[in-house]
């Protein structure tokens, strides 16, 4: 184990000996490096003013992804390349995105601007690997985690179209070879162990090592993407005295496919999952891309989302419908658990002391399965669900031979609708049957009133979502969802 972290910053290897485990990348930049271009807007990963790019190696290739520096702890940068707004210019020349932002009046007060540019730059690097033209949806996706209160976004959208049509590349793109070998040279071979001001931090590189640590420090905080856990430090000003960071364990990030289905390591990020979700089921993506923002999905892991056991975690209802099975590991043993058995009550899961979620197995859906899920929130992007419904029926000769209905936001844990399911099982797939089964939802759930929605609203919408599931299967040619990108609408840049 080592007590120093290394990452690439401003073209050279930055070594930080004994970094404070609770120090965020944002505070390190602003307070220790005087790099104040990256801003704090909310300290909870919701406004994007702190967006930076983190480059890391994936099968020998350097991939840059925007993340929120305000909820990222510095030690987790070990072995990466950190890019901030100050890196974009080369030889006094603005990057095409910066130039376009100037020319299109993309900044007004300017406070969100560095974060906006970094998010667009992340997309720019991604698009430079493909030959497809930029779409409005890609811009909206890239900026879903960046709030601007001044512009109304129009000038930023125009700037993006303009910049992306440029063929010019900046410093980062030009130096990608050299940078790759530099990052290669600092790839963490040894785990990190820190003990600074009574704050312990471990970043093991193997699962076995991690499990040993989990056993040795049963009260430690297990940190993956940190998109929720870091808020204890940045919002509640608590200190996390013992952290075991799981993000350096390659094994947990693996994705494999077999005839039976998919196995996803618990450290797979939402972004990675989105990359293959179409192959699991084409309807998954529409919900996954409404989880957090690009920055959050680049950091947040599926294991973290499950282990967090939030009543409004978006992944769990989906996985329940897909009959996902968790593999839970200690150093001594491994067991499998259907995901719905994982959640016991609010804040309580089936995870035992010393145990980690190793992977999630998602079996292949049979051909006669119909599946869909709907997220409902006040805002389309980067919002926590008021409720989320996931629906699956397997139909054989017009009869429902298998049914799973699961909701988030309707109970203290993600939960299946047992009574409603029972009312549908072995029944004909028909509107009347569905309508009468929907009445059972009030026996399955007693949702709460909160600022996201009243119990009455949640109950009503739960019924309506089941209705939508029917409508979309029965009448696919009629619109049943809001269409954000209608074909007949001319691109506003044209």
């Amino acid at each position: 184990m080592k007590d120093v972290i290394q990452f690439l910053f401003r073209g050279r290897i930055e070594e930080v000996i004994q970094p404070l485990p609770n120090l965020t990348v944002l505070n390190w930049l602003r307070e220790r490096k005087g790099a104040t271009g990256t801003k704090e807007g909310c300290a909870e990963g919701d406004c994007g003013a702190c967006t930076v790019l983190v480059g890391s190696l994936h099968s020998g290739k350097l991939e840059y992804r925007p993340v929120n520096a305000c909820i990222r702890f510095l030690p987790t940068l070990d072995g990466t390349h950190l890019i901030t707004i100050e890196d974009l210019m080369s030889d006094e020349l603005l990057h095409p995105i910066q130039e376009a932002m100037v020319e299109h009046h993309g900044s007004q007060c300017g406070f969100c601007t560095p974060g906006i540019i970094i998010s667009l730059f992340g997309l720019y690097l991604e698009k430079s690997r493909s030959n497809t033209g930029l779409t409005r949806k890609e811009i909206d996706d890239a900026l879903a985690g960046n709030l601007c209160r001044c512009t109304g976004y129009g000038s930023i959208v125009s700037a993006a179209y303009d910049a992306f049509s440029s063929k010019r590349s900046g410093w980062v793109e030009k130096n990608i070879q050299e940078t790759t070998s530099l990052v290669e040279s600092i790839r963490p071979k040894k785990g990190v162990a820190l003990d600074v001001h009574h704050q312990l931090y471990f970043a093991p590189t193997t699962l076995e090592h991690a499990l040993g640590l989990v056993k040795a420090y049963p009260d430690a905080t297990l940190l993956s993407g940190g998109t929720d856990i870091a808020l204890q430090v940045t919002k509640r000003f608590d200190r996390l005295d013992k952290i075991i960071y799981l993000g350096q364990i390659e094994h947990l990030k693996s994705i494999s496919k077999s005839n039976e289905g998919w196995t996803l390591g618990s450290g797979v990020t939402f972004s990675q999952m989105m990359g293959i979700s179409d192959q699991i089921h084409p309807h998954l993506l529409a919900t996954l891309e409404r989880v957090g923002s690009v920055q959050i999905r680049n950091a947040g892991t599926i294991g973290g989302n499950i282990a967090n056991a939030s009543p409004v975690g978006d992944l769990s209802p989906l996985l329940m419908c897909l009959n996902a099975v968790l593999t839970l590991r200690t150093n001594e043993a491994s067991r499998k658990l259907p995901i719905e058995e994982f959640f016991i009550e609010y804040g309580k899961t089936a995870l035992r002391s010393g145990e980690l979620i190793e992977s999630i197995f998602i079996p292949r859906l049979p051909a006669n399965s119909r599946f869909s899920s709907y997220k409902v929130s006040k805002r389309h992007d980067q919002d926590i669900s008021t409720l989320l419904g996931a629906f699956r029926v397997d139909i054989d000769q017009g009869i429902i031979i298998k049914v799973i209905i699961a909701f988030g936001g309707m109970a203290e844990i993600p939960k299946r609708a047992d009574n409603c399911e029972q009312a549908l099982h072995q029944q004909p797939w028909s509107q009347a049957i569905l309508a009468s089964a929907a009445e059972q939802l009030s026996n399955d759930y007693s949702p709460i009133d909160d600022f996201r929605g009243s119990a009455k609203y949640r109950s009503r919408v739960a019924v309506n979502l089941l209705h939508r599931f029917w409508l979309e299967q029965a009448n696919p040619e009629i619109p049943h969802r809001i269409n954000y990108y209608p074909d007949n609408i001319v691109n506003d840049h044209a």
Partner: protein
Amino acid sequence: MIMPDRNYHESSRAHVTGAALYADDISNIGNLLHGCVQASTLARGTLCALNLERVRQSPGVVAVLTAADVPGVNDLSHLPDGGGEPLFIEKEIVSEGQAVFAVIADSLDNARQAAKLAVVEVEPSSAVITINQAIDADSKIAPSRKIKVGDSTRAIDNSAFQINGSLYTGGQEHFYLEGQISIAIPKESGAMTVIASTQHPSEIQSTLALLLGVSSNSVTVQTRRIGGGFGGKESQGSLCAGVAAIAAQLTSQPVKVRLDRDQDMIMTGKRHDFRIDYKAGFDNDGLIRGVSLDYASRCGHSLDQSKAVNDRALLHADNAYYLENATLTSHRYHTNTTSNTAFRGFGAPQGMLGIERVIEEIAFTLQQDPLDIRLANLYRTPNRSVTPYGQEFDSKVLVRIIGELTEHSEYRSRRKKIRRFNQGSPVIKKGIALTPVKFGISFTAIHLNQAGALLHIYRDGSVQLNHAGVEMGQGLHTKILRIVQDILTIERSDIRIMATNTEKIPNTSPTAASAATDLNGMAAASAATVLHDRLIKVASHRLDLPEAELSLSDGFLHTGDKPIMSFNELVNEAYLQRVSLFATGFYRTPDINFDPDSFTGSPFYYYANGAAVSEVEVDLLTGEHKVNRVDILHEVGQSLNEEIDKGQIEGGFIQGMGWLTMEELVWNDQGVLQTHSPSTYKIPTCRERPSIVNIDLLRDAPNQVESIYRSKAVGEPPLMLSISVLHALSDAISSVANYRICPQLNVPATPEHILESVQRVEKLGLASV
């Protein structure tokens, strides 16, 4: 299209490279201490005991401040007539978020950790939280105001049709991206310099003088730029500045106080929420014969700017419509919630919602297109042109705007198309609406309509420009640079715009009321003209030519077309001739008057007009919606900078749309704000921007009154263009009962409120079949 360089935002290069410095980015201040303010978690009660021993003992703590540590007057209100708003609570707690104490430590983290160690004993008492509670308790914070023209009661009673109802509008958090912050730096002999994120440096200056018990000449406040204001930094900056200045005086060290986002949202004021009760009478022609509008607003725990905000609501209760018989009443309620304050539009948006609802109700009653009801009731010269408060309004421009917009947006044909679409679409319903805006420009507090500028020319020909306005992203500095540049005919790069500073321009008005360019632009033009004329005189003297034959252009002195000497040479010549190379400029808006007691006069120098057509689609199963398209035609006079003006229009529209559709402030029964961070309070993201946004500036429409370049103010008016979104939603919802029932949609039209409205309309529709 590539614009000439000088049109770009003056800070844009600094913005896009991260080099633009905001208060929190200023790093070269030695021995800087950090403050953390601890706020009340109780809405109403008594502070019984405050034990700060463990706070004081905590690592890094240098000082702990409470009400007892305020050297001068413990008050931020800035109002002589009972606005009382203590910086620190003394005994009575009247709202969540009031400051109880502040910790000053060597790091922000140490200050925050220490603050948690306080033992605060409070005794809760019953609190008034909602508007309805306040109305029931009759807890007024200021006397009600009324505008009465004609006899509305009789007119309503004698009409063929009567409608009445209520409308609730929620408040709005400013959500400027840069939160509240101040840095106080103690200087010699009791002086203090404060770097503040504020729209109103002069008010911070005078408030600090009172808090510190010194005179104003001991306090200097400066602001280079702020990361958004929207009204939220007009009076709200005093809290951070006050704590920082008191701590700096006490410790003789610089102190920074920056609120974190949650504190900011809990502690500082927001847009006023309103209940509007309306009653109207009309005949078959849709003309409003009589109307009564009752506005009840939640002002919060102190007066702050509530009087002026509610005055402006009343002054915009007519929006664009002539009201022959009207009783317009405004009640201002005291509640145990954060003290509501200025927010872009300053009461006018709420004022307009009432009459727009009335228009809508008439349209549903008469089964007509609401646009036709709007047109019927519009102000018309000469017989229908006097506002309820007695100012003449010439509606020619507005009539033109509505006409052109109706045509260009194809409103009429789209409306038909949408109705056909809805017939074949059981779940997704579309809607469309056109609403106008008439917004009065000038501070209604007449004395605020003044501004100053100070221009220095140095011997090398470079220029420093100071004026009274604050750059908060609206492009003020860019416009003013252009004005000075045009007069002196030099490059923009030769002029450096300086931080707004009370040392340079005293007694400034807030950068607010959309008027900053109007006021400061005129002042700067005046200063530049003085120097221009002096330079011409110098040249005339030197060259022995009549002044009339000399001119400045392209940075050169010319006779006729012939350049004679460069601006720089001319400046040096002036210096050698011992001619002053600095000048002040001052401007006061002419021809305005207002008597706030009788509520009559001509408070507005002019009106800014516009209209918008919005098209939406609503999901009947969840109440979610999307704005698909907006067409805007807006009047900015002779634009000083078209791109900046369009940016203000679009930004204002989207901000208004956020207020009307998604931004929801929720307090629990105890008066504790539940939505105090962006994870729970949602402002529009890029995806909410409609797929089609067509923004046009009204062409060939210079300001009729003499304003700077005959331009018009643009900061606030466009926000109210978003009212078209609310009415388009209403149109979509009403389709579920074949457009027979007015949905009476409340604000914000969140999915839940829309779904409620859908259910209500469905039910009433069935009942009325």
